[in-house]
């Protein structure tokens, strides 16, 4: 059974014949099947009385079914009264709106624009949340995990105190950036200064010299005198020299 009043664009049942005729003429192009039925039934007083009485009962049953959680009950599904179904969560006691259709078989409904927008918004939000979840999961997988600070599983939850993290130590450590060792720094600097004064040495020789320099020995390359002079500055002895002087 269809709600002819709503299908021709009237908000509620009415006995105003002129209003029905106006609604019929305004929706005649968009909804021919319902307009034909409404013209046949609502403009005939005898038929209208029977239809209106049945409609009121079906409308009440729709509301009661919604209130009692029986909207999907088997006997109700057999009645094909979709126009009178009421959304259980809706605070309004009005049945859901029926829009006139332009084409298509009788009995099908199209969701109105607000419902369509609502569906799109829900879809976008769901997609964004899913993407964020996937990104979060991937970044967690890349991070090295520490053995400390893991959470308990829900089934093993104990007292509220045990819900706290065991210490202020972060659960996960960010990947450490490679820290340049002192030797690397010295090596770079030595190489740079040697290049500046026009001395070219192979890397193994530089490595040996740098190692000696770090260990505090005297100029590892006495032939050049470059390293000591340039690295520690003029008039400044390397640490090894101070120690030797004390001794």
């Amino acid at each position: 059974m269809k709600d002819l009043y709503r299908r021709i664009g009237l908000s509620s049942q009415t006995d105003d014949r002129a209003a029905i005729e106006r609604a019929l003429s305004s929706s005649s192009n968009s909804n021919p099947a319902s307009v034909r039925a409404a013209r046949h039934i609502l403009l005939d007083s005898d038929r209208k009385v029977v239809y209106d009485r049945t409609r009121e009962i079906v409308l009440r049953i729709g509301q009661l079914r919604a209130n009692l959680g029986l909207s999907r009950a088997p006997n109700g599904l057999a009645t094909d009264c979709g126009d009178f179904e009421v959304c259980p969560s809706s605070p309004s006691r009005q049945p859901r709106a029926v829009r006139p259709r332009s084409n298509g078989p009788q009995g099908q409904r199209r969701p109105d624009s607000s419902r369509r927008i609502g569906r799109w918004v829900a879809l976008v939000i769901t997609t964004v949340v899913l993407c964020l979840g996937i990104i979060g999961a991937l970044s967690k997988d890349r991070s090295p995990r520490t053995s400390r600070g893991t959470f308990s599983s829900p089934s093993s939850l104990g007292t509220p105190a045990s819900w706290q993290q065991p210490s202020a130590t972060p659960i996960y450590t960010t990947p450490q950036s490679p820290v340049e060792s002192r030797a690397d720094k010295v090596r770079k600097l030595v190489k740079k200064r040697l290049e500046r004064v026009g001395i070219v040495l192979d890397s193994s020789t530089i490595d040996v010299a740098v190692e000696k320099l770090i260990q505090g020995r005297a100029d590892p390359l006495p032939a050049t005198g470059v390293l000591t002079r340039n690295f520690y500055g003029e008039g400044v002895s390397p640490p090894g020299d101070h120690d030797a002087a004390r001794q």
Partner: protein
Amino acid sequence: MAAAMVLMLSWIASCDGKISEEELEGLRSIAATGRSEASLNAVIEIALSGRIADLQLACEVLRELDAKHRRLMLQMAVGMALEDGVLTTAEGHIVRFIADVLSQSPAELDSLFREMTGEAFPAPADPSSVEWWVGRQQRSRSRESNRESDDSTRAVPPPRTAAPDMRRLRDLAALGLDEDASVEQVRDAYRRMAKVHHPDRFASLGSEAVKAAEVSFRRIQAAYERLVGA
């Protein structure tokens, strides 16, 4: 519980806009047994106004019935819907709704209806379709023409005046029969319905239900006696 039952039955009785004498008699007897005769008018008013909150409360009370009593309550609802001999579209919708409230499946409702009338529970009619109205008009016309052309072949003696004709039709409807039913069919229908509506079956549902069944039983008995001329 009695008030909830009376309210739901009153809703069925009043859904065609009026309550017939037979329906009122049934409601009165149920209300009198449940000591709620004084409030019967108020209950009927509520049923006529169709207040959602009151009907919902009655439904929630009915849900407290156990399985056996639920079936008997549904039987009372079907009986009330058929009280005036015709199951209207609105009555059909309410009976289906009550069946859902009482957790009775469509198959159980159909089985109960067959038990009571010998026919399947009718498919829901659609008063919002042109086809239904055209079909209704055609059925009415063919009934008229049959009555005019075939009076002599009827099994049950034809009435002499218009008033007895209506009485006879109502008696046949009370037994769930069409106007062309034979005497044998009337006997079969009476046996079947007397068994279903026998007051003893309703003893466990309480005195109100027994009283309602007694009213239905008396109505069926009277209809049968008038039809077969006993």
